[in-house]
């Protein structure tokens, strides 16, 4: 034990010495991020750059979305780095709180791939390091017992669920996240994208969800909802580890779980799941020295070796990353042409309206037409207040 501790300590010290500063001359790195394992890994790598006049602080919290705008609005900003995703970058862009990174990429970004750069109007505004999205988690043992093939469409899933139930293997073979609020809105976004729907009239903030695709989406969501729980689920790629972990609470289930791309719907070939990326932005209201230090530390945190050493932690976007089985789902979605979650400035308002107004429909209290009309009306009220509509 003692030997082990000493060795570990030695390794930590050696690692610390070898990496102290990461070539940063000085400055303060202050990171705000969501709280899940893959991000923790990247941030702890970035923290290794502390020392020699460089300080690295972090705040990982699920409330990061509520903090980021006020914290980056003050000058100097409270955080130099905001770790964001497709949806949470939007308020930062709307208020002009993050800086273009092109010159920093040119100077210090040799390890980055072109596809990692989030370019808006030609300017690099964020660096993505992992992909995410919901995809299928299937219990192979249950499917085999029922004599079924892997379903690839939402309709196929419903049929499979029916077979599993009829054969008495499970009462509720399907799971989805349908709690009122964000998750309910998200189910709609996924399925609606699968039907090829668009949320707004082209080039305007007018809602456009009340058409046929919207009605079909709701009918499908209702059918999925009624089918109940658990041999087949559409779940976040970043949660793979928790589900298939051999040291987890149910290793035999983990072993029998297979991962596949999200299903298609309505005869289309677009997976019914939005694609997400997680990446980092650098605040605008900070000194150039801090911005440079932050950029170098974060690039150090997402260097290709981090992905290679932790292949199952996330669907990494870094160079030379050979995706293991655990990354199959998200990559399958991307390959099959899944649509990214819209980065439009008013998508957040739409998502909130969907989450709030679809609950009545899911409970059978109102018609699909009425539900979509309510969503449009609620969205329009909010968009008017936010200054997107008149």
């Amino acid at each position: 034990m003692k030997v082990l501790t000493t060795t570990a300590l030695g390794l930590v010290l050696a690692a610390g010495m070898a990496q102290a500063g990461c070539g940063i001359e000085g400055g303060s790195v202050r990171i705000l991020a969501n709280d899940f394992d893959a991000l923790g890994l990247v941030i702890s790598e970035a923290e290794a750059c502390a020392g020699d006049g460089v300080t690295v602080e972090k705040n990982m919290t699920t409330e990061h979305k509520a903090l980021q705008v006020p914290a980056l609005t003050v000058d100097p900003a409270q955080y130099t780095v905001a770790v964001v995703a497709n949806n949470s970058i939007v308020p930062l862009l709307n208020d002009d709180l993050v800086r273009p990174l092109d010159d920093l990429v040119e100077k210090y970004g040799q390890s980055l791939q072109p596809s990692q750069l989030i370019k808006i109007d030609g300017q690099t505004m964020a660096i993505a390091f992992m992909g995410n999205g919901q995809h299928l988690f299937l219990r192979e043992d249950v499917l085999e017992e029922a004599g079924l093939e892997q379903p690839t469409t939402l309709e196929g899933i419903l049929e499979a669920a029916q077979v599993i139930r009829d054969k008495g293997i499970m009462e509720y073979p399907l799971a989805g996240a349908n709690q009122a609020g964000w998750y309910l809105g998200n189910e709609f976004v996924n399925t609606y994208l699968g039907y090829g729907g668009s949320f707004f009239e082209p080039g305007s903030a007018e809602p456009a969800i009340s058409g046929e695709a919207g009605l079909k989406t709701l009918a499908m969501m209702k059918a999925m909802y009624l089918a109940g729980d658990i041999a087949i689920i559409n779940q976040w790629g970043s949660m793979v580890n928790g589900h298939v972990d051999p040291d987890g609470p149910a290793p035999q289930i983990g072993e029998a779980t297979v991962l596949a791309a999200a299903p298609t719907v309505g005869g289309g070939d677009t997976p019914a799941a939005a694609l997400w990326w997680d990446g980092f932005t650098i605040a605008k209201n900070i000194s150039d020295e801090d911005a440079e230090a932050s950029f170098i530390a974060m690039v150090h945190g997402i260097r290709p070796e981090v992905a290679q050493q932790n292949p199952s932690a996330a669907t990494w976007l870094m160079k030379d990353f050979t995706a293991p089985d655990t990354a199959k789902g998200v990559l399958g979605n991307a390959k099959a042409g899944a649509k990214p979650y819209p980065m439009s400035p008013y998508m957040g308002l739409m998502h909130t309206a969907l989450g709030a107004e679809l609950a009545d429909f899911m409970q059978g209290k109102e018609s699909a037409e009425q539900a979509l009309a309510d969503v449009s009306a609620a969205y329009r009220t909010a968009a008017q207040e936010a200054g997107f509509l008149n």
Partner: protein
Amino acid sequence: MRHRDFAAFILPSAFAMVLFIALPILSVAVQSLFVEHEQVVVTVESCGPFGCETQEKVDTQATAALRAEQPLGRFNGLGTYLNRAHLAVDEIGVILSDNDGFGDVMARIYNLPFYKALAFTLVYTALVTPLAMILGFAVALGVNNIPKIYKGPVIFLSLLPYIVTPLIGSLILFWMINSDGVIGASLQWLFDDPELSLKASPTLTWVTLIVYGIWHMAPFPFVVFYAGLQTLPQDTLESAMIDGANRWERIRYVVMPHLVPLATFVGLVLMMDNFRVFEPIIGFSSEANATSLSWSIYNDLNGQVDQLFGSAAATSILTMLGVIVLLMPVLIRTWREFNRKAH
């Protein structure tokens, strides 16, 4: 006390009240009259790991210029108060002019978020306030009559629901009524219905929230009434006994009149508290079936990426007006009594 002494005595407290209560309320009221600037949106190409596409984006410089011109935002008057998320005058007009009878009108008005929240808030206040007072009174009478050595522990146990943080209390109950929880599973067994869930049906959700509210609130009237019972004039009580009054008559004609002033105070406080019901809605995740005015404010400020300050401010002002309207009868009565005593 001389006026000058009184003024000097009250000044620090008055100053704090202006600073921490009056000014924030004023700022909320001002905020509710404004909405955000028109956002200048441009279409650009955006690229990422999943390819490129055209997407809208806020032209931050043009929007910032608009902002600098009018730092408060666009003046909207009472527009926010009247829109669909609040009083919904236009929508109500449409509903009233074109409907299939009273039931349809009620259903469609209830479908509007503000009225949905108001309906639950009013029902909750109207039921929890009197029932919690009755329960608290009954417990106080009971505790008053038990032997002295048990009193300490019994009072502590009776106070527990009030001591437990509402969020924790409601979460614990939420888990218990879950279909795997002890109450949920027992009910399913009792009614022999495996699909029975207190969380899925709107009516049962309302009942659960109201029962929880009574349980949580009852200790407050209990403590106040129990304290009041200690000041009960024993000689009046004894003469009532000599006059042959039974237990119920003594409660009705001696105890209750003695406690009326306290009941007014307790009712006032309970009504204000209940009208602001919030934690149980979060604890029970009951947004789909029951929302309250306070929950609407929270929801506006806790949007996914955007915060609707004007909307939240308008709901806050409407909530305050609601509290004033509710308390008006009691306030008028207190004012009259004060005047009567003064003359």
